[in-house]
């Protein structure tokens, strides 16, 4: 607990120090990797001012986030300009605490699961089992990584609304294990209301309800109804505020039809700048299905591991959504230590980690070469962001595969021969 307190206070101090460097915050909030048309703070301010004239916060085609968030943040700003950075720091802190709590609960459950199935485990697998020291270290590590991840810090000081998205998703995962489907679905509904893609995570809530709750409470449809209820409440409140549903429709239309092709670290913009108009609808469907469809096969495969499903769905959302930024990635990167006991079965972890670091640094360099120095072009930047996306994909597939392999190996043994026996095979070289 004291560890957590120390980490949180260090994180808060770091953020307050960085926030008062005005040049840095101004520069960072302009970077395409950090702020997208959906999340940018300056766009939010502009949208709110426009909404005073026309009543619809999306009517200027500038702000593309949700109406309630813009109203909340702008009223905070009106109360006091210092409140807004404080709220963003609070978002980070609460998210870190939620993730810490979630990690503790999850690992406890996994340990209990493991201990209850001790009879099914093979001999000699002790080295790879989940242990108590995991339970002690991993939650602190999760909070540490979340708070001190440069992606999170950058999102916080640029006042990008991804911080709220991360907060809601962190609270959602924290409540997944607790069984209160009302709380879980409230935060999931808030996250879906802001960006459309987390709607896939309702499957996770239903599977968790099925797996982690007591016998009497196992109504898998309960999260679904609660989710729809909360979503309707949110739509109702925004309808009351604005007088029409036009704003909500335009918000979702922006996410789904991707009209804005300003460069970001995603995969949409480059493709849609160059395709012919008559293919646009087709490829729009293809790209959105790519982002929205994976939950079907994954939930079938990972139905007994809902948290792993949640992890990989979060990765897929943050990588394949229409306007991603680095703040989207920070949530699942901080969840990686949860599977530290399976890292033995990851393939080329060093290469993939270094790839992520390199591409993170390469993207701004390519941007500078393209936009400022005029010595590169869009292909350079897109290649760097494509490599960044690929590193994400490698990390998420590695992690999930390692997890599944771990589950296999603890039943079948650490060393395996081709025929399944655990005897050693010796190769003798002919002279």
């Amino acid at each position, binding site marked *: 607990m004291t560890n957590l307190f120390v980490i949180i206070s260090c994180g808060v101090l770091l953020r307050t120090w960085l926030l008062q460097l005005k040049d840095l915050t101004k520069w960072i909030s302009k970077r395409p990797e950090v702020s997208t048309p959906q999340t940018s703070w300056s766009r939010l301010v502009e949208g709110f001012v426009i909404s005073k*004239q026309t009543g619809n916060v999306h009517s200027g085609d500038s702000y593309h986030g949700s109406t309630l968030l813009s109203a909340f943040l702008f009223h905070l700003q009106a109360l006091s300009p210092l409140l807004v950075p404080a709220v963003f720091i609070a978002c980070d802190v609460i998210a870190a605490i939620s993730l810490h709590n979630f990690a503790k609960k999850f690992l406890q459950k996994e340990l209990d699961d493991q201990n209850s199935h001790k009879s099914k485990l093979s001999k000699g697998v002790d080295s790879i089992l989940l242990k108590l020291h995991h339970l002690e270290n991993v939650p602190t590590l999760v909070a540490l990584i979340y708070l001190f991840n440069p992606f999170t810090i950058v999102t916080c000081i640029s006042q990008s609304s991804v911080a709220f998205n991360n907060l809601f998703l962190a609270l959602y995962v924290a409540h997944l294990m607790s069984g209160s489907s009302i709380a879980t679905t409230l935060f999931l509904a808030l996250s879906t209301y802001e960006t459309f893609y987390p709607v896939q995570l309702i499957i996770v809530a239903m599977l968790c309800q099925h797996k982690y709750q007591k016998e009497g409470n196992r109504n898998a449809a309960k999260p679904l109804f609660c989710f729809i209820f909360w979503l309707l409440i949110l739509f109702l409140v925004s309808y009351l*505020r604005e007088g029409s549903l036009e704003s909500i429709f335009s918000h979702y239309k922006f996410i789904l039809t991707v009209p804005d092709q300003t460069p970001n670290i995603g995969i949409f913009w480059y493709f849609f700048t160059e395709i012919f108009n008559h293919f646009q609808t087709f490829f729009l469907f293809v790209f959105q299905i790519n982002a929205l469809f994976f939950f079907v096969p994954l939930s079938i495969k990972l139905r007994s591991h809902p948290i792993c499903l949640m992890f990989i769905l979060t990765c897929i959302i943050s990588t394949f959504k229409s306007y991603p930024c680095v703040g989207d990635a920070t949530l699942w990167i901080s969840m990686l230590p949860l599977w530290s006991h399976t890292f033995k079965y990851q393939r080329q972890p060093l290469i993939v980690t270094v790839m992520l670091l390199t591409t993170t640094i390469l993207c701004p360099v390519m941007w500078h070469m393209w936009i400022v120095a005029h010595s590169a072009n869009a292909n350079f930047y897109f290649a760097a962001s494509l490599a960044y996306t690929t590193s994400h994909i490698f990390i998420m597939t590695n992690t999930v595969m390692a997890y599944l392999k771990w589950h296999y190996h603890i039943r079948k043994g650490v060393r395996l021969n081709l025929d399944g026996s655990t005897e050693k095979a010796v190769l003798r070289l002919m002279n």
Partner: protein
Amino acid sequence: MRKNTFTLLVGLLLISLYKTNAVNLDEKVTDHFSGSRHTNNWAVLVCTSRFWFNYRHIANALSVYRSVKRLGIPDSQIILMLADDMACNPRNPRPGKVYNNKNEAIDVYGSDVEVDYRGYEVTVENFIRVLTGRLPPDTPRSKRLNTDDRSNVLVYMTGHGGEDFLKFQDAEEIANVELADAFEQMWQRRRYNELLFIIDTCQAVSMFQRFYSPNLVGIASSQIGEDSLSHHVDPAIGVYIIDRYTYHLLEFLEKVKPGSSKTMQQLMKVCPRHQCISTPGYSTHLFPRPMNQTLISDFFGSVRTVDLSDDVIKFKPRKTSQGDSPPLKTSPKRSYFSVDQFVSTFPIIKKDPHPMASSASLVLLLIIFSFIIRSLCDFE
């Protein structure tokens, strides 16, 4: 009774005298110069030669262009086609200037020249398209010959020619039958009232021998079998800078002022054989009016006939199918000093939010906060 008849007779006599005076004046005027029906003047000036050593052809065309402009035809009604650029040619020791005389007194290029077809755009096809008006729809006005049936057109061509043909750009030729057919197309589409065709090339007369459309006059600088020769070299520039016929034509035109009463017959006396070395040829059999009664300014200038009248003419409102044309509305003049004054005149189409909106959003906010705080308490 007698007094009345006497005054009536005197009055009638005076009136008849007055009337005869007026009639005599009109007849005098019209007797001397046969009036032309045209209301506007156009010119198509074509130089078909390229390369530095054909400097003189460019100078020919530009000199006629300058004269025609001076005499009143506006640039919008002149199509100038120059097959090469001498003014900015790297071999031109007088960059940006083209001279037609070795005294280099007049720069016929100048800063207000408007070349409509330049360089490789001067082709037989473009020339015929310009004459007949069969141009692609996106052709700009400056490249169109927008003549009507009351336009007098001057067509001046210069370059290298032979018997029955004129060379364009060293690559193609226009035949005299093609030219005659183009003019016939113009006549059939009522694209000219009268047309003066001047050509300064070798064996120039062959080019108008096949004309068959009405209201055409042709002037050529040499007969068949003769060569039109150049006039003189400018040693500072290094090439022949003007042709003989055009040199003398310009000498003649320099003395012509807008509104001059010089006739076409005087124009046809320009450059006799001893001056031109070649014999100029003329074709007037297709022209209805006699040459000594046709003014040069019918073709070279843009003279408007003005009728003075003391009558008062009242303009009535135009009757349209929807009734009378609407009266002019004069809106009150307002001046704005900044954008927001202007913007505030726009109607604000904002819908009033529901009265419960703020309370509903506050309630929602409280719910969310309570959940967050509850979860935090649960965590610790």
